[in-house]
């Protein structure tokens, strides 16, 4: 486009400069296109991309520990590196407050189940302790505070303290414990003023006051009490917990608590690659617990074999189809498309019928006397069954792109090669095959991506040796309830797929899917 001749820009019919007019119309076009796309994009983002993002988030989320035991976690975080693993009475006292509230909200066993994934036995430790914590007698705290000032027994005193931000800062544990009590009372539909304050609040008060006794809060009640708590008679929570269960003095339990106290953890990802996060750092899982490495390798390896089988079987028939007249090719195409259009479960059940020991293949072999009754082959519930069934199921995904590429290779090329003296093999290998490689590439990546995520077929025909990583993901979602680990395994798989997706985009082009290789 050369610039305008003469003075001033070219004007459009309405008098605006043509350039601007064109730009505006282009902008309008872009906007219109985006407006048309927007509803679907929003839909996909909400129904599909958000779930994937949520899965990624779940694979690192670990808020349950700091939410269930906030006071304990706070103290543990404050510990220096040289602090003893099993903390002192002060932390146990905070743990008592935490646990008491957790038991009231029925959250302690849930935390136990969570930590049990990392340390065997924590589940029953929390369940057992939960029962005993409620029964532990800590009335003396309340009595002693009431002795110092009876105002501590009035709910109204507490409600006024609640409104003071400085008190919140000075007595965090107390305020947290009191508001937990308050929430509980309100939830039950009772009036706070008419209810009796529970003992654990006073344990929290004691914990706070004994820690901040030197810092002055501008309230007489608190100052007065703070100077008195030094002489209080206390409960030895550390040995009380040991009496609940001796595991509370076990270093392993506390190491686990310390390692998993942050709200986000890489622990699930480490588990997903057969490592573990320990107090001392990362380490490899003991050999008899390593499984995910094996499963990932098996999934990739078997997907490779399946892809290979699909190439081996798909290439000849795609070639045959592309070298026959259209009418014949269409007939052959139906034979490829029919299984492709048939329900996945139908095909999987068909393979069950074919491969089982009393199945069609074994029956035929017995009938032909190739094997005898006792020597029926085990073709199902192993890797062989999975490979056969999945190759069958995924074969059309290989044949179709191959066919669409081979259709475009002119016959004259190989003829020319032969007329120049090439043997059949050379003509094929040096001329035809390189031209068909894009089809192999597209088909292979498609088959590979699909097969590493397969769940149904390995589940039904895979037995124990033919299962994939996806079966394990499903197991952790629905059976062991270790959703974090399931999410981590899924995220790793996602990463592999995205990588392949990118490669696919390079070879075929995502916005070019329809053009056929």
């Amino acid at each position, binding site marked *: 486009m050369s610039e305008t001749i003469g003075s001033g820009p070219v004007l459009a019919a309405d008098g605006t400069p043509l350039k601007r007019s064109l730009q505006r119309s282009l902008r309008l*076009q872009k906007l219109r296109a985006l407006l048309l796309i927007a509803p679907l994009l929003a839909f996909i983002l909400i129904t*599909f991309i958000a779930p994937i993002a949520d899965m990624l988030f779940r694979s690192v989320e670990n808020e349950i520990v700091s939410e269930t035991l906030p006071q304990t976690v706070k103290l543990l975080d404050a510990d220096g590196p040289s602090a003893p693993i099993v903390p002192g009475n002060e932390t146990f006292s905070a743990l008592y407050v935490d646990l008491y509230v957790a038991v009231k909200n029925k959250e302690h066993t849930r935390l136990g189940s969570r930590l049990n994934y990392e340390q065997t036995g924590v589940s029953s430790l929390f369940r057992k302790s939960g029962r005993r914590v409620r029964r532990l007698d800590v009335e003396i705290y309340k009595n002693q505070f009431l002795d110092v000032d009876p105002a501590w027994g009035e709910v109204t005193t507490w409600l006024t303290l609640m409104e003071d931000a400085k008190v919140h800062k000075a007595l965090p544990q107390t305020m947290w414990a009191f508001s937990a009590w308050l929430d509980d009372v309100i939830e039950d539909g009772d009036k706070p003023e008419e209810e009796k304050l529970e003992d654990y609040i006073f344990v929290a008060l004691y914990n706070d006051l004994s820690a901040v006794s030197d810092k002055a809060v501008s309230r007489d009640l608190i100052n007065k009490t703070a100077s008195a708590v030094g002489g209080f008679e206390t409960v030895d929570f550390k040995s009380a917990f040991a009496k609940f269960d001796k595991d509370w003095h076990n270093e392993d339990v506390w190491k686990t608590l310390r390692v998993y106290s942050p709200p986000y953890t890489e622990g699930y990802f480490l588990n997903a690659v057969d490592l573990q996060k320990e107090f001392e750092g990362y380490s490899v899982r003991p050999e008899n617990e390593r499984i995910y490495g094996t499963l990932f390798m098996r999934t990739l390896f078997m997907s490779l074999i399946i892809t290979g089988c699909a190439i081996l079987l798909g290439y000849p028939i795609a070639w045959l189809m592309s070298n026959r007249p259209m009418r014949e090719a269409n007939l052959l195409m139906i034979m490829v498309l029919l299984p492709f259009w048939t329900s996945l*479960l139908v095909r999987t*059940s068909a393979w069950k019928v074919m491969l089982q020991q009393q199945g069609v293949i074994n029956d035929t072999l017995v009938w032909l006397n190739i094997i005898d009754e006792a020597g029926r082959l085990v073709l199902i519930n192993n890797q062989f069954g999975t490979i056969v069934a999945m190759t069958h199921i995924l074969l059309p995904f290989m044949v179709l792109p191959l066919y669409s590429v081979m259709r475009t290779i002119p016959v004259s090329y190989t003829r020319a090669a032969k007329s120049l003296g090439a043997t059949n093999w050379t003509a094929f290998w040096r001329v035809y095959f390189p031209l068909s490689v894009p089809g192999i590439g597209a088909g292979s990546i498609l088959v590979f991506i699909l097969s590493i995520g397969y769940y149904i077929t390995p589940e039904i025909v895979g037995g124990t040796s033919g299962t994939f990583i996806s079966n394990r993901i499903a197991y952790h*979602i629905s059976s062991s309830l270790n959703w974090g680990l399931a999410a981590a395994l899924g995220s790793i798989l996602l990463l592999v797929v995205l990588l392949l997706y990118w490669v696919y985009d390079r070879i075929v082009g995502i916005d070019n*899917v329809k053009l056929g290789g």
Partner: protein
Amino acid sequence: MSKSKQKPIVASQQQIAGSGAFFAGLFGFLFGMTQEMPLIGIAGGIVAGAIVAFLASKYIPTKRLAQLMSVILGGLLGYVQSQVTGAIVGAVFGWTFMWFVYWVATGEYRRRLPSYATPWQVIWHHSFVVLCWAIFLFLITPIIVVMPLSFNAENFFTFTPEMLNFDPAGYSLKHYQDFLTNSDWQSALKNSFLIAPVATLISVSLGTLAAIGLSQPFVPFRRAIMAILISPMIMPLIISAAGMYFFYSRVGLQGTYLGVVLAHAALGIPFVIITVTATLIGFDRSLTRAAASLGANPITTFFRVQMPLILPGVVSGGLFAFITSFDEVVVVLFVGSAGQKTLPWQMFTGLREQISPTILAVATILVALSILMLTTLELLRRRSEKLRGMTPAKSAVKQTAEWRMSVAGGKP
């Protein structure tokens, strides 16, 4: 039986006898195996095959007559050996035997080959074709096997002796009856038909709109948007299922009808996008301009001009989306709850828990359905070509490739 089709016999007598010996020898070997005397089978097959082939080519005037006679002979011998089954096997063998003999005798086997091909090249070519047919057989057999088994009178997944003897007592419709009367299957069927159409409607309406947007000449971030919209198709189902399960349970959609519909709609969208954009590529923009210049507003233009032309693409995209939802099991297994149990889910449970041929009856019905769908799609494709003014002869190759690749992008 017209005489013009009758091809003259060009092969030598040795070749004819040899072909008969080869084919019958092969069969004799298989038959011998079942009787535990393969060698005798081979020898008998070779001798008998050679003689019969020789006599047939020499004394029987037409191929048809020869085939008819060998079918009858094979059938009779088979019946003597093992009743109905044997008769059928024998008849089929007789037919193919004569076909093979004449295929060789009339030189038909060299039809596709250049006249200078050496015998080895001929053999190589034909073994390659046989191999290809074996692969096609591999593709199709499992589906063929399922169908007769669904008529099994027993509750087994295997062929009973009665079935193999074509005894009517070995067959029954009871598994179909079970499917039609069992409340589990019926509610599963109902759920499938409640979920799939609604999911299809969502994906088709949103997808068509977006496809039109995507095929505008200037679309910012086209590649990125396309990648996001296609991603549900490429993502392994287990990842989609896990993500949706986690997220939908956070927002209260897990275990609800709406949740399953939304999930299935998301899975169906890529198919609509792909098929509709493929149709739009061949769409002549001057048509809408012409409509606009004649005074039609954009909405009228869309419904009166554009829509009828891209309708085949929209419908086939819709079919894909429908089948995706109708056939989907992994996502519904996680996102759904007992109230949304669909047909594939029921089949999955059935396969894992009790092995009942009712599953095979359902399978047969589904295969019939998919043949129906396949025909519909093929007809739509042809119509689409005609509407877009493409002469099938010229662009059929490209069109098939296009459409087929969109299939290949296809069903996970």
